């Protein structure tokens, strides 16, 4: 991550949750697909919608809108799932929409403030600004493997 921050430019996929824009490292994105045929998991947190069959792999789906309490939680043919490929795991996240892919230079990235976000700032790599837009840069890998997301087995239980 350090290298990412220090590197000249970074390419980000920007998605929206409500009125907020979030950016994740595009290299972590495997594909973008519609929301379809999710099998719910018993006793899982509400934001874990369930699992899908992604070409023979069982992939869990997390609804970021529920997790961060943002946006309208509806499921229709326009609901977007971003499939992420993280440290040997595949996870899908449901977002309000995918807006674009942006390239940020180092100057455009500001450190994240210590308040105000719906999520723990330790999962934020900073704030990017393009003209009037503010993009919250997420360390998606750290977030998805955190205990908070309940996606991975607790290390020592």
């Amino acid at each position: 991550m350090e290298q990412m921050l220090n590197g000249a430019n970074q390419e980000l996929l920007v998605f929206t949750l409500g009125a907020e824009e979030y950016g994740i490292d595009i290299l972590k994105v495997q594909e973008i697909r519609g929301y379809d045929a999710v099998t719910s998991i018993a006793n899982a947190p509400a934001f874990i919608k369930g699992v899908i069959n992604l070409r023979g792999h069982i992939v869990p789906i997390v609804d970021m809108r529920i997790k961060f309490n943002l946006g309208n939680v509806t499921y229709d043919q326009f609901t977007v799932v971003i499939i992420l490929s993280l440290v040997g795991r595949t996870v899908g996240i449901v977002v309000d929409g995918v807006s674009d892919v942006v390239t940020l230079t180092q100057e455009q990235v500001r450190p994240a403030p210590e308040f105000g976000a719906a999520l723990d700032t330790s999962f934020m790599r900073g704030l990017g600004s393009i003209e009037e837009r503010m993009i919250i840069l997420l360390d998606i890998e750290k977030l998805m493997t955190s205990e908070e997301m309940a996606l991975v087995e607790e290390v020592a239980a």
Partner: protein
Amino acid sequence: MTMTIDMSQFIGVFFDEAAEHLANMESLLLQLDLASPDDESLNAIFRAAHSIKGGAATFGFSDLADVTHILENLLDRLRKHELPLQAVMVDVFLQAGDVLRSMLDAHRGFGVVDDTAIAGVTARLEQLAAVHDSAAPPVHEEPPKDRAGDGRLTGWLHIGADPQCDTRNFLDSLQAHGHVHEVDEAARSGSVRYRMTLRGPLEDLLSELEFALAPEAIRWEALPVGGMAVKDDGAQPVRLSPAQDDDPGYGFFEPLAQDSAEENAAYGFFEPLDKESDDTAAQGYGFFVPPESLPVVPDASSRPADEPVLASSSAPDREVAVSESSGGGTTRPAVPGKSVAVHETSIRVGVEKVDQLLNLVGELVITQSMLAQNVGVLDPALYGHLISGVQQLERNTRELQESVMSIRMMPISSVFNRFPRLVHDLAAKLDKKVELRMLGEQTELDKGFIEKLADPLTHLVRNSLDHGIEAPEVRLAAGKAETGTLTLKAFHRGGSIVIEVRDDGAGLHRERILAKARERGMPVSDAMTDGEVWQLIFEAGFSTAAEVTDVSGRGVGMDVVRRNIQAMGGRIEIESMQGVGSTISIRLPLTLAILDGMSIQVGSEIYIIPLSFIVESLQPVREMVKTVTGQGRVINVRGEYLPVVALHEVFHVEPRIAEFHQGLIIIVEADGQKIALFVDDLLGQHQVVVKNLETNYRRVAGVAGATIMGDGRVAFILDVSTLVRLAQSKPQQVQEREPA
């Protein structure tokens, strides 16, 4: 060894083969009848040692070759009945096998060789040979000069054109095996022939060449030695003149040690002369008796000639004549060479390749059932061809799936094979008499299980020997046969494989287990059934052994055994009767990858229950379901009260059917306990491809895995053992996340 071919890629093969030979040797040794050893077995043991030696010498593992050489010498004398077989020899041979195995491992990069162990075994082997040498016929005094040179074989080596390999580069490697006098290249065909005198046995050369060349491209044409034709009669060549016309003096100065490493006893003609003196005493026995006595000493006179015949008759799949001994007068028996047949009938493939294949076939099965489902709604009149095509696809897919599955299947003998040795050693250590019987060794199961079964089974066998089977005097006092019987049995039952470890020993001691459980503060009562009492021994740290031995009794083990078996999706059950013996059965699914399941509907969700857990399903009438203290529910099934678990409550699904008498009850059994699952509906029976949920997610309580249904949706496979356990303990706990 100067080789232009890169040998390193074959070293792995050598290690694998050597390990197989060692295992083979060990099992044969253990089967030997000490009183009257079977010639066939002795020969097979000898051949195993010999093959290891040949390979070791080829790859330059001289330490391996040296130890095997000594071992081989003793074995050779045994198989020729020059020495009587003794129990102590079998033990030393087994030790030698262990030492060889550790040396192999060391060469592979695991562990270190214990030099003292090597020296110890070598010394004992030599000692055994020496003790009997004094009794052996005095044939040591063979003139050493006779040995030089004339043991060598001269002939034309034909190497056919091979597009894969530049045959001209072989000159170097050939020179490692003998002296090349002449190279004759046929420009037209690209084939080459070399006239050469071999230093070692032909077999060594051929087997080395076969690493690089197709066996049919190699042909050996023997030439007369010393100006005389090689006769068919194997006993004769010894009498040939030692002169070497084409290369006088060659071989006189060859170090004998090298010869000994490369000599090959299976090749019968000249070997006795090539050997070190003590070796000659054994192998050359009979060669120097007066010719007139030859016919009446069949053992000596017939040996060289009939040996290859013996070899090929005993193991036809391993032995193939490499050279059609060039017709005419210069004949010699076909040399048992590296097995062409084996290469044609089996190949070694990495497990990951097979698994990939299996995964792909799994995908194909899913795609096929998706297609079938979609085609099912079409009008057969309009889409007849499409429908029949899809049906054909279904048949082919099933067959393909079965074939691919069968690749992963291995006979359980590869696990069982270790036990004769284990039982042999343990019985000696514990001063018990034990006969091991193994049944159903050819039962096939998934390779993944084979590897994981070894440890639990070893544990069970050790337990049976230590705690189960009594000491001989105790057995006699109890009116049993002095020798205890331990039976390992594998067989198919329904969709699973059952492996039993049975002994006719003392059986489990119910009172002692209960007392021990109370001591440990476990909630037990005298009213517990035997089955429940036996389950106690699977608790961690539970041991009823009166004293801790170094074999078992420390109380670690049975809980690990059960956990290992459960991790494989299997179950473990105990039957025992005091004084009569006990049987521990392990029940495993046929394979990890595919499972026979019943799909059931609960609300909008579909779940799969593995068929092996299902006892029966029934439609309850209202009166069958009763409540206990207002919360727990039980169902009366033919007089048996079983706890009822409503799946929709476990998985928080909105059921379509809330009343018991409108839905279905499925009785499942795990760990000897039955529970009744209440579901909305039964959908049907499927073969499902098991997918791991933990690859991308985490473990979910009550779910063993997932699968993909015909419509592409994911369905969970229920973990019946967990459901049963949770139902038994605290029903509420099911709803909480189980701690990992």
